[in-house]
Structure formats: C-alpha cells, structure tokens
C-alpha cells in the first residue's frame, strides 16, 4: 500500500514551525517510513501531485497568494491542521491589523527609519501578491480540522498529532503539549 502523503506550507509565518518539524530529531526517519511528503518546502515540491492525507499550515493569510495556497490545500488534503499561533490567531503579523494598510506601506517603503527609496514609490508590480486589509487566521478563510497553538508548538506536539492521525487514533494531547507560547 502506498504511504499516505503529507503536505506543508508556510503562509504568513516565519518558518519557525517548519523548523520545529525538523526538531523531532531522529524521529524524522520514522516519519519518512510512515509518510511521503508532497507539496512542501521540506522537499521543494511546488505543486500537488495528488490527494494528501494531512496538510500542515504554518502562518495566517496576509495576502491573496496565501489565500489561494490555503484554498488549494483545502482542496487537496483530507485533514488540514493549523500549526502555530500565526495560523490559529494571526500571530505577530496580525499586529498590523489595527493599522490602516496605507500607513503600513508608508512605514515599509517611505518613512520608516531604515528606508532608502529615492523614487518615493510603493512597489506595485503585478507579480507581487496584493496585501489583504488585515491578516486572517486560517480558520477565518477555510475550514480547518485541527488547531495546534504554540510559538512554535513543541516538536512533541506535532509528532504526537501526526502519529495519532496516521494511525487512525483520536488526537488526545497531554496538558503539557498544548501551550500558546
């Protein structure tokens, strides 16, 4: 029987949650016995090659590309999991949410203390994904099946969750594995 496939993506996140996946240490050898990775920065596969059992999403949605990626994951994954505080509550990127977009652009490209931009223009190339009005946690964009909070969640939390799901057991994490920091 073919191994179930796992896909991962980092949206508006810092890749810290992906680093934590690597933090499972030598269990990563067990993991590749259990699953194949599909679309993921871990193996650099850019497009889905088929249906996936589990999708791990790091980060919330800060631009239209994030939304498209997340919708693509929802379409291709049986179980979709928010991993980390950015995915579950917006996290650090969401700190811009109370600030008007124009002010954010101005700070980044015009008036910020370290800005060097003699043209005085805000980049507007069609290649650049448009920013959303604010940063949205994943569950406000598509249906998410599980949420793992943490900044980042511990490697044990991610491991226990994956193993439970792949062996068809209920995810029942001990007290110490659910933390918001």
């Amino acid at each position, binding site marked *: 029987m073919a191994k179930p496939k796992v896909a991962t993506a980092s949206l508006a996140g810092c890749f810290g949650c992906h680093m934590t996946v690597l933090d499972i240490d030598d269990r990563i050898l067990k993991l590749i016995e259990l699953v194949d990775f599909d679309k993921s920065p871990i193996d650099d596969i850019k497009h889905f090659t088929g249906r996936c059992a589990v999708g791990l999403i790091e980060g919330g949605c800060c631009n239209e590309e994030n939304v498209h990626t997340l919708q693509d994951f929802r379409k291709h994954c049986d179980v979709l999991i928010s991993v980390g505080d950015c995915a579950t*509550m917006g996290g650090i990127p969401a700190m811009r949410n109370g600030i008007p977009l124009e002010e954010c652009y101005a700070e980044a490209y015009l008036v910020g203390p370290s800005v060097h931009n003699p043209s005085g223009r805000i980049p507007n190339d069609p290649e650049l994904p448009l920013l959303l009005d604010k940063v949205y946690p994943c569950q406000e964009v598509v249906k998410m099946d599980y949420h793992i909070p943490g900044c980042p969640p511990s490697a044990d939390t991610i491991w226990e969750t994956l193993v439970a799901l792949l062996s068809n057991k209920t995810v029942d994490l001990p007290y110490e594995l659910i933390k918001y*920091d």
Partner: protein
Amino acid sequence: MSETVTLTIDGAEIQAKPGQMILVAAEEAGIYIPRLCHYKGLKPHGSCRLCTVTVNGKPMASCTQPVAPGMVVETKTEALNQFRRQILEMLFAEGNHYCMFCEKSGNCELQAQGYRYGMTAPRYPFQYPMRDIDASHPDIFLDHNRCILCARCVRTSKDLDGKNVFQFVNRGKHKRVAVDSRARLAGTNANVTDQALGACPVGALMKKRVGYAVPVGQRLYDHKPIGSEIEAKASR
C-alpha cells in the same frame, strides 16, 4: 441558625459556613471552580461568569451565590465546560492576546484557563481592536490590549491599597480601565508596591524591567493546570 450548611457539590456532601459563597465552600472541600474576576480578599464581583455552576439545575455564578441547605451543585458537567470554553474563546477573540511575547505567559490566569479547558483556537472571529499602552509610569505599565475587564485592579486599588487609581470608563465594547488622572499612569499615586499589580490575572498591569524572569518550564502553569493546588487538597 445552625453553624454549618450541608449541601451537595458534584455528588459529595459538603459542610459550609452560612453565608459562604459556593465557590469558596467548594474550594475548602478541594473542588476547584474556575474563576478570573474572583480574587481572594476582595468582595465577589460576578462579572466573568467563568465560575458558573448549576444549582438545582439552574446556572448561577458560584462566586456571588451563597450556600443554602440541601442545594445540589454541579461544577464540572460537559455542558458547563463547553460554556466556559466559549467564554474563554470570546475573551481571546475580543482582545489582543499575543502569548508568544507576553511577559505574563506561563503565569497568566487567562492562558491557564485556556489550557485547562482545552482551547486550541477560538471559534469566534478575532476583533484585533486598536488599544493603547500606557508606559508613562517609571515602574509600571498598563497594556489595554491584554485587559479582560475583570476589575481586579480597580477593586484592589480601592479596597486593599486604599488608593482608587483605576476605574472603568465607557460601556460595551468601548469599556476600558482608566486611571484617576487626565494625565496617564505617571500622573497618579500608583506605586510599584501596590497590591493592584499582583491582582492582575493577565499581563495588562505589570512591573517594568522584570519580564521573562522565570524560564520556560518553571513557570506557574507550565506543568500543572490552574486549580490543581486546590484539587490536591481533596486527594490528601
């Protein structure tokens, strides 16, 4: 009047003092009822509703409801726990609770209640309100982003510190804690030794320059859920 009142809490017969609130009577019997606005030494406030229990089948705030003979109290039914989780989710969605960089993280009662009731992400849309931080005082800061309006600072300052530094202003979603001055915290008689600081359950009212003093893994709620010290009394 008899000296004790007999009532049933979670199936166990409990002796309580007349006039005692259900929450306190339960606590003395080793039964923990979750709370945020209730604080030892202060008059009960009854505002957070986390301590809601059923009394003879009817929901009531256990911090403001005195015991009565023959009461049948349930404190941990699945329905109550669901209800508590919803309150917590609303609190998390309403404010800006960035646990990942909060100095209170690990020692925060709101966070600890979230852990205890298994909240992973709120089902409600986040509000991301724009709120102010008052860092004007040399030793104290007041971060409205983290405030849950429990009034513990308001009441502690008034009743225990005898100062009246904090009050509530505005109503509904605009309600917030304000200081007794048109200036900011710096213009009040608030002092870093005030008991009001320790009364804050979250990271809204904090001492400056002592953040992250306790390493992760050694903080109050890193290993044991909030309330387990009360529950330990029962198992002894």
